[in-house]
């Protein structure tokens, strides 16, 4: 069975500090990987997606970056947090069959920037 593990569960960080969020998918080879973000009161926005190791596409510019160092790992990071980065971050995976049919989400990371 496939599992998706996201870490940390929650973070409280200061403005200007660095951030690293991670996501690991087990039981599925070469998945498509995604980072989604939801600001308080907002909708889920796709930030990045990756269809293979080493390749990441940015969808929305939020002064964040993402990397896929391994087939099963997706990292979201920034060197300098902004207040506007607060929110709920979700990692997700899907299989690419010509069209996204189903996204499988992790449990998310709640980020508070003070």
């Amino acid at each position, binding site marked *: 069975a496939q599992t998706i593990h996201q870490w940390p569960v929650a973070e409280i960080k200061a403005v200007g500090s660095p951030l690293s969020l991670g996501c690991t998918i087990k039981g599925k080879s070469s998945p498509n990987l995604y980072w989604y973000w939801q600001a308080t009161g907002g*909708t*889920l926005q796709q930030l990045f997606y990756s269809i293979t190791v080493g390749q990441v596409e940015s969808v929305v510019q939020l002064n964040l970056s993402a990397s896929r160092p391994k087939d099963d790992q997706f990292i979201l990071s920034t060197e300098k947090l902004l207040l506007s980065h607060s929110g709920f971050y979700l990692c997700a995976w899907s299989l690419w069959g010509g*069209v*996204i049919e189903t*996204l*499988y989400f992790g449990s998310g990371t709640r980020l508070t920037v003070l």
Partner: protein
Amino acid sequence: GDSVTQKEGLVTLTEGLPVMLNCTYQTIYSNAFLFWYVHYLNESPRLLLKSSTDNKRTEHQGFHATLHKSSSSFHLQKSSAQLSDSALYYCALSPRGRALIFGTGTTVSVSP
């Protein structure tokens, strides 16, 4: 551009009453997929329903939805709400297969 509209931010109802959550969308792509995702408290969002076929009813776990391309709608319905249906419901659109575009979500609160 592509977009999804969920007009109701919060729906409160009594157990046993019918539920209808509205979803309309905008896209130029005729073969777009529409989805309903449900997010229960302290769980991950998960797929509830999906469809790309015009005028075909899709059902799962007592919920159903029919994609109507003529009106660009994909409303979610259930005949009788249960307490366990309390959750956040997202309508989503996949216009070209690369990204899901989510609506703002509708919180459903079911009381006894």
